[in-house]
């Protein structure tokens, strides 16, 4: 029984190859990002698509909040995204130290 179950599971989980055309820089980023997390670009994309499928659909139109609609529109228009992170606590400490000390 166990062997039969495993076989069925294997058949269901069989992967299918897919050829994608992506920005070379994005491919490079994706491979590095995946390598850093001990996974593969394929698994990253699979996870992302699974999340898209599973997340409850909320309309981007009138049903979504103004914040969601605005950011969705900005991203669709290619609005530049901030590329870096800062240590926000260090930033505020520096500012407060300058301001009040």
């Amino acid at each position, binding site marked *: 029984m166990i062997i039969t179950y495993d076989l069925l599971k294997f058949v269901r989980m069989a992967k299918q190859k897919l050829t994608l055309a992506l920005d070379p820089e994005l491919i490079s980023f994706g491979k590095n990002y995946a390598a850093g997390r001990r996974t593969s670009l394929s698994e990253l994309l699979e996870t992302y698509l*699974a*999340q898209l499928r*599973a*997340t*409850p*659909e*909320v309309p981007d139109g009138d*049903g*979504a*909040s*103004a*914040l*969601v609609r*605005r*950011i*969705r529109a*900005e*991203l669709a228009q290619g*609005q*530049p*995204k*901030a*590329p870096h*992170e*800062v240590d*926000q*606590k260090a*930033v*505020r400490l520096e*500012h407060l130290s300058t301001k009040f000390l």
Partner: protein
Amino acid sequence: MRIAVDTDVLLDLLVLRIAHVESALRAVQAAQGQGVQLVTTACVLQNAYFVGQRHYAEYWSLERWLDLLDSVELITVPKAALERAVDYVDYEDAVLALSMQHAAVRMLWTRNAKDFREFASIAALSPEAYLAGLTT
């Protein structure tokens, strides 16, 4: 249901931080679609405004900030939270967590979930983890 939002996730939305804005936005969209109210403290908002304006000036948008304010309700910071927070390593995180406890808010979106492990009544998780939880 209400979910609190920490400074880092607010910044992801406010300045469209490239690695995180999409998941943060999807989490907001999913939560709001389920009738969840996002909340935070005034201090968290002030911090997000300050860091966003100062360090991400070229990505800052006043309209985005105002829309964010419309999407988030404030919880109060009781004096007891300010008093009890001195017992914790990170005063700022403790004030947020204790204010959440006071307001009976049980979930926090943050990308520094480990900083909130001391607060057993609070489920601190990233927007990505929140979205993953919706799938199970």
